[in-house]
Every structure is written in C-alpha cells, then in structure tokens.
C-alpha cells in the first residue's frame, strides 16, 4: 500500500487531509511539527512514498528542510509542498530542490482536496516508475570494468 506522511502544525488541516487520503485507500501518517516530521522520515524503515508538508511551520523555510530530510532518506520519495495562497517564491525554491509539486492551500474556486488527491496519485505513479526503472537497471548483468 502507498505510504503517505502529512506534516503540518495545524491539527484541523492534518485531520481533513488525512481523512480525504484515507478515503482513497492510502496509508497515512501524521506529524504535527517540522521536528516531528523529520523524526518520522528518519525513523521509517522503508521510507514514505509521498510526503505532503506545509511550507511554513517553525519558520518560512520548514517545508524546504522537510523536503531535504525526505530526499536524504529515500531519493525517490515524492514531496508535495503546501503553501499559503500567493506565496510562490518558496514554492519555486522547493521545485528547484526536487519537490514533485506545490499546492496552494486556499486557492479560490478550486477544491484543493480533489487537486491534492490528483497530485498524490501522480506523485505515487512517478515514484513507482522510478523504482521500476531502477529495478530494471539492477537486473542488467554486471559487466566488469574494462
């Protein structure tokens, strides 16, 4: 089953998001702060498939550090960053560092939950493909260096 970690210091945000993703059949863990999130990532035995993190928790760079922690643990973990509406600068920074995508939390007129379900699906798929590619590469017979 696809494992997801939600990192957000706002209880109601976490609860709403976890409920929606569980409805889709995902296995969802929650972390209520940046440090809790980092610990969860480091402590997981097979890594998370997708990490959804709030951008601004302890400070406005918290999301970037969660992204770094996740990629350090498993280079194929896909990270989706949640940002405040209109705060694109940090989101762009995350994209540069390899985030899968960013989603603005309160995008007017958009059902952000459906959007997130879609993004998580795409992220999970990209991870599966990446892992398959790696597996296929590993199946090639090893040739000794010339």
């Amino acid at each position, binding site marked *: 089953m696809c494992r997801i970690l939600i990192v957000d210091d706002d*209880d*109601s*945000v976490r609860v*709403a998001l976890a*409920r*929606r993703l569980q*409805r889709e059949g995902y296995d969802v863990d929650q972390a209520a702060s940046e440090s809790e999130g980092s610990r969860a990532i480091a402590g997981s035995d097979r890594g998370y498939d997708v990490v959804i993190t709030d951008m601004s928790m302890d400070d406005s760079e918290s999301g970037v550090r969660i992204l770094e922690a996740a990629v350090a643990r498993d280079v194929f973990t896909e990270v989706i960053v949640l940002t405040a*509406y209109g705060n694109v600068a940090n989101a762009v920074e995350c994209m540069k560092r390899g985030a899968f995508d960013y989603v603005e939390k*309160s995008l007017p007129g958009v059902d*952000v939950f459906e959007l997130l379900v879609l993004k998580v699906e795409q992220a999970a798929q990209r991870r599966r493909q990446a892992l398959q590619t790696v597996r296929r590469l590993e199946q090639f017979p090893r040739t000794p260096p010339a």
Partner: protein
Amino acid sequence: MGEDLTRSNLSFKTLSKYARRAVGTGSVRDLLSDYARAAVAATGALRGFVALAEFDAGGLVIVATAGADWTEEHRRNRLADRDGAGTITARVASTCRPVCVGDVTQAVAPDYRPFFPGVRSVLAVPIALDAEERVRGILNVESDHADAFTREHEAYVSVLAYSAALRLAAEDLRAREAALVQMGRELAVAPDISHLTRRVVEIAGDILRFEDCSLFLIDRTSRRLVLKATRGSLRDQVSSASYEVGEGLTGWVAEHGKSVRLGSPDEDPRHKGLYREITPVEAGAFLAVPIKSMDGVVGVLRVLRRNSTSPWFPNDFTEADEEVLATIASQVGAAIDNARLLDRVVQSERMAAWGEMSAMTSHQIGNRVFALKGALNELEYVVDVAGPPDAPLDALKRRDVAELLGEMRDGVARLEEMLGEFRDFVRAGALALAPVDAAEVVREVVADTFPRRDTMRLEVNLGDESLPVQADAVKLKRAFAELVENAVTMREAEGGTFTVTARRLTGEAAQQRGMALPAPVSGRGPAAGYAHVVFEDDGPGVAEENKERIFQPFVTSRSRGMGLGLAIVRGIIEAHHGAIAETGTPGKGARFEVFLPLTAENRGSPPGVGA
C-alpha cells in the same frame, strides 16, 4: 591743552588700556564698573554711573557706579522711566549724542531732579556703536562745580562709552549665537513637532526680547495657518486659531514667503487683527518671518513688542532682529523636514510590519479555510454516497454528517475568533478615555474569570485606596482578563496559585524597578505616581530569552488563536501611557507587572503604601 590733560589725569595711555579691556574675558559688570571709575577719575568728577537700557520696558537701569555718596536706594533708581523729553538722559537717548551741561540749575528743564542735591555739571554720553543704532545705555559723570567738564573730558568718556558698547554688542552676539546653536541642537532631537514648536517660542524669547511670540504652521489638509505654539495670551487658542493663507499680515507672510517688520502693525492695510497677543493700544512693533521647508513655506513665526513706555525710546525690531528670527525660522523649517522624513520612515516600518502581519494572517486564515473545505468535501462525499437527493440518510450517515457539521461550525467559530483578535490588536490604541479606578477594574476581572476555575487557588491583594487612572475601562478589562486567562488556561490542569496585586507606587519607586516607563504626559506621570498591578502564577514561567518575544504579535505556545494576545495587552497598556513587562523567575512562575500613570487627583494619600 597738553597741560589740561595732565592736570585732570586724561592719560591716553590709561584710555587705551581700558579700551583693550573691552575685548577681554572679564565680566561685563566688572568692565562697566571699571569704566565708571575711570570716567570719574579722568574727569575729576564727584561721581559717575553706567545705566543700561531695558529694551522691552523702555527704561534705563543703573548697573555700575563710582565716586561719592552712592546708596543702594540711589542704585535702584530707574532713569527715564517716565521722564519728559527734556531731561539730560532723554536727550542723550533720543539724539544718540553726548550732552554736557555746565550748570543744571540754569540750563535744564524745570522738572529736572538730579539724584543728588548740589549737582551743577553733568556730562552724559551714549553707549552706542553709531548714531543710527539704538542706544544701549548711558555713561554719566557729574560734579558739584559748575562747568566742570571740557570737550576733552567728553572725548575721553565717549571712548570709554564706545568701548562699553563694543563689549555689549559682542555679548549680545555671543548670546544669540549660543541660543541659536542650542536651538539647533534641540530641534535636531525634538521628539515631535509639537514639542519642537513649543521650544522654538521659548528659545526665541530668550534671544529676542519681546512681548510675545507665536508659531503658525500650514495644515496640510485645510491649507490654513494654524497656531501651534505661543507664549502668552493666545495659549488657549493653540490648534484652533487659524488664518487663511494670504489673510492678515501673518497670512501675507505665508503667501509671499517674505518677512514683515513694522513699527505699528495696526496702520498697515494688510493688518486684520484676528488673533492678538496684545491689545492694539499696546502693540508696538511686529515682526514675522516665513518658515520654509523643502516643500516651500510651511508656516510663519511672528514676534511682537509692546509700545515703549517712554515716548522717546524706540522699540522697533531692527534688521539684526529680523536676521535672527529668519535664522530661527530656517532651523525650524529644517527640523520640520526632518520630523516629516522620520514620520515617513516610521510609516514605512509600519507598512513592513503590516506586510508581515498580513502574511501571517493569511497563512492562519488559509489553514482554517483549508480545513473547512476539507469538511465540505467530505460532507459532499457522504451525502453523495447516500444515493439520490431525495433518498433518506441512514443513521450511520446521519452521524457522519452531524460530525462534519460540528467540525465546520467549530472552524467558522475559530475564524470569527481570529477576526476578533485581529480587530482587538489593530484597535488596541483607539481608546475612549474616562476616569477609571484601576483597582476596581482588577476586582471585576477577577470576579468575572475566577469562579469557574476551582482547580486553582486565587490570592487577591487590593488595598482600600482607589487607583485613579484615565483609561478605557473596556480595553483595560480586556488586557487584564487576557493576563488572567493566559495564566489560568496554562495551569488549569495541574492547579496552582494565582496572585493579583494592585497598589500605588511613586514615580521614583517605579523608575527604580528598572522599567522603561514613558515620559510623563502633561498633568500625569511620575508626579502622581503609578498604579502598579502584578499578575503572578507558580507555573513554569517565561524563559529569559522569551521575556521580550512573548509580546510580539504571532508568537504563541497555544495551538488556538493567532498569538496576538500579549501583543494586544501591550498595545492597550502602552496606549494608556503605561508599561508592561514579564519579570518572573524562569522555572518559578510567570509575573506580569503593569504600570499605569495615576491621575493627579487623590494625591493626599501617602504614596508607595497600599496593599
């Protein structure tokens, strides 16, 4: 003639010595006493004196005497106060020429009364730099002999008088320069424009002797010249008295950016006499200069002198006076530019703070909305799965729906709470002030918030005496209640003791507590002392590094709210010209100390005592 000089001690050697002394460093009084003695010695006079003009009153005051028979009573005599134009002093002062009378019993007006009986000859010379200048004073020698003084005596005494005039002029210039420098210094550090304008009229008064001085500034919205500071009778009309630009003499100065200097302002066609510092009968001289800043004329500084009490003693403002006033005005203009630039800096800092605030707020509100949308999304799902729109909800779905609705109701309530908090924060400084007893407010707050908390022990130390403050009772209650709630919600679970103390504290005692208390506002502040209210608990307290930080907006250890609570408290207390600080020992408990300036009434009760 050489023989004459020797006989009467008219030594030019001593004269040059005296003249040199004029530029020395000794006091003016000593110098003038020396000159009086020198004049007496050189002319063989019986006695002599120096009298100086009082420009504002129009009289002459004896400042140095020499020779025989002087008593304190003689020295207190004021000359030319009400004398007619015919007296010797009057003639010297009005013509600025020496007067030498060989026999006063013959040659002077019938109402002439010398200080001393038996005086026959009088030699009086003006103390003035030139005949055009206003006479600064008189050097006078007299003798019991008729025709005691010669042309040579006159020349000698005139040189002494001229030297005295030089020194007096130098003193004046030095005093003006010092005052201008002082003004420049003060204006550079004046905390605000109203303080600045008040100091301007005070310092200008010290430099230019005048009856009254008023400062008008052009209001930026109404474009009218509004009285901002004055020394005398117009005080009650500060901020209300105003001229149209172009109206009256003051308005003319503002419109044309030029000075006006007049002997009798009432005769000028531009004069309107709307706001008078002195009655038209008394008005002697008028001087007004424009205050210019980078944006052109921003105001007018005007000074007035009363009519001289002696008809021959002119009281007009001189060109030098005008120059001084223009210098003051240019400094004021520069200071106003500075103050307005500073305003702009403060404004932009405030905008930056708003920017940060709106970012924080939008994040917080964004989260609430996100959660609401989540509940809505789920609700749609639950209802959808239930089947067609008219199908009945089964009991299980009904419970889900009720749960989600509860969640949404909670979400909306939290949004409202945040808006309320935000509004309180923004409006913390908008107060409806009235006389309030701070002790009573504490009592009410405790009564409102405490009965519901039976896990905590409450200690209230309120004396019998009232703590009269000018306050917005509702806002003050809000601030105190926040401090109580803050302690209580954190400690409720494990219990503990909460202590509230309110008492009177003198200004000195408050200062000694190391609080950065705001400067006294007029009529209040340290003179009357402070209401000192302390909220203490025995919880974990506040770590040293957080003592200042907790008062900043958006800092919170609680999961609810926006973290504006203590920022609102500080905002309210500071708007009351008070101060608040957390002074507890980390690990032993939090301790919030509030200081509010008491109003002056009730000062009869002994300070520093109380509960």
